[in-house]
């Protein structure tokens, strides 16, 4: 087995007196999807920020290709091939597809102060990159990003990351705000990125979506890795229970069923 692209060893993070992450050890390999599962407040976002260079770990090691490394800022992480795509795509809704694709790295013609932004090239490259990921509905690079559906925006952001040489793709709740159909879209894109040999870190609290693409799962509870297992080792119910912190979910289900049985099929009134 090859060395993992990215590895965390015993990473801790505290903000002043508050400990947020305890002893996190995780590995991500090329062509593999690591699903990070956890409820709100479990420390998922802090972990992503450490991976993408926004925060530095208080202690512990980050290794890339087996070599110890560090990301002092987001720029350093992206220079090393780590791309983060946020829930809403992190794109610019009122910019055209071509322009937003090349923000910061605009293709230009001419020299010195007379450089001209090359709209034709930008549009053609951006449209091709997205279409190669199977989003054939996009054919006009002048269209505004805000006019795309949520799934298409995610796909555009992922295509952009891959085009600019990302090796590790961190997807922060990419399906959380999407409908069923759009989410399937994004999951297909995740599979395509995996097929191309990228290492994907997929953050979600939707177990169904995680099971659809994940090879490797880690469940985060109150800042610690509560479970670390491979595909097929656990069922959906087991994972959901783990995320909810033990057997509480199934006991809640049993409770509701019991209430409905004794109240003529009516669900319990909402708690106030």
């Amino acid at each position, binding site marked *: 087995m090859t060395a993992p692209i990215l590895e965390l060893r015993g990473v801790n993070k505290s903000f002043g007196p508050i400990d947020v992450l305890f002893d996190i050890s995780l590995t991500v390999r090329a062509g593999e999807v690591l699903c990070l599962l956890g409820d709100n407040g479990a420390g998922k976002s802090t972990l992503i920020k450490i991976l993408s260079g926004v925060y530095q770990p208080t202690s512990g090691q980050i290794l890339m290709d087996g070599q110890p490394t560090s990301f002092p800022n*987001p*720029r350093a992480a*992206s220079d090393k091939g780590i791309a983060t795509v946020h829930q809403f795509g*992190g*794109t*610019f*809704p*009122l*910019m055209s597809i071509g*322009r*937003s694709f*090349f*923000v*910061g*790295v*605009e293709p*230009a013609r001419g020299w010195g*102060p007379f*450089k*001209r*932004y090359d709209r034709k090239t930008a549009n053609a490259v951006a449209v091709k990159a997205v279409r190669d990921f199977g989003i054939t*509905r996009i054919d*006009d690079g*002048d*269209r*505004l990003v*805000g*006019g795309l559906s949520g799934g298409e925006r995610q796909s555009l952001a992922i295509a952009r990351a891959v085009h600019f040489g990302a090796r590790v793709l961190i997807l922060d709740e990419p399906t959380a705000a999407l409908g069923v159909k759009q989410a399937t879209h994004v999951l297909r894109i995740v599979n395509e990125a995996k097929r191309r040999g990228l290492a994907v870190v997929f953050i979600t609290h939707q177990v169904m979506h995680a099971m659809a693409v994940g090879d490797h799962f880690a469940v985060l509870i109150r800042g610690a890795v509560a479970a670390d297992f491979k595909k097929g080792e656990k069922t959906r119910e087991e994972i959901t229970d783990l995320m909810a912190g033990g057997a509480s979910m199934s006991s809640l289900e049993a409770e509701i069923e019991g209430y409905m049985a004794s109240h003529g099929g009516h669900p319990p009134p909402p708690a106030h």
Partner: protein
Amino acid sequence: MNLSALIRRPETGSLISLIAVILFYVVFGGVDLVKLMGAASWLNLAANLGIVALPLGLLMIAGEIDISIGAMIPAGSMTVAILSGHYGLPIEIGILGALALGLCVGLVNGVIATRTTVPTLIITLGTLMAVQGIILSSAMLLTGNASVSITPPDWAKTALGLMIAGKYQVVIWWWLGLAAIFFWVLHVSPVGNWIYAMGGDQTSARNAGIPTNRLKIALFMLSSTAAAFVGICGAIQFNSAQVSGGMGYIFNAVCSVVVGGVLLTGGFGSIPGIFLGTITFAIVSQGIYFTQIDRNWANLIIGITLLLAVAMNEYFRKLALSAGTRKKGGKA
């Protein structure tokens, strides 16, 4: 150009506003169209306003605002008048001094804006007051007067204060030239893309490697220097400078930029839009003198135009966002 590409452009709304305003004056005010279009009054206003509105528009596209321009215009006038009029220094020194003051105030605005999270409306409100205070007290201290006269040499008068054919100010040419340069910066050069990205989402723009802080400081320096330039031209044309005045420019320039289709929250707008918005504003406020309408109504008409233009820009932006999706919807 097809219809969908046309409605995607930020200046479409302002073009329609301009046509609507002219039609209104022609139909209800009995204006002679040829006479109105050639009138110096609105062209002169548009030129002075436009030189301030162009850099202000760039700032607003980048998601910021600068109202200290209201103080920078009299500050530019007073600086050149005190240096070259009161102390009799060469006019070059007066002009450079005024422009340097503009660069300094812009630098202060920009540095505060990048170092704090205070909204730039508040920051530049502070510098607006501060610059007013500095100009009034230094004028009284140095010259003992709130109005200073200046006798510029012929070349300066020709370049900055000439009246072409006795009524057209030479700043009209400066305005047109600057509009061309700003068009290049925003729409042709790669830097334009940075400005849009900054206004769209500053964090993403910084993560994409755009030097957002340096760009923001540069834009602030540009807007206050442009305001100082308008002040210099005024002093040279009228041979005198006053500490007051310039406050009207704040609202008029913001109004022109917004009528021109620039989104107040940033990320959307264009130079042709700002250009047309400035013309629209100038024609509304000056064109009323060509009508039989009582000129006391002018501000009402400006207010209504502003509201209608903003509503229309909103509508066009929605169309722009959905443009291209509908024609594919037919296939699905």
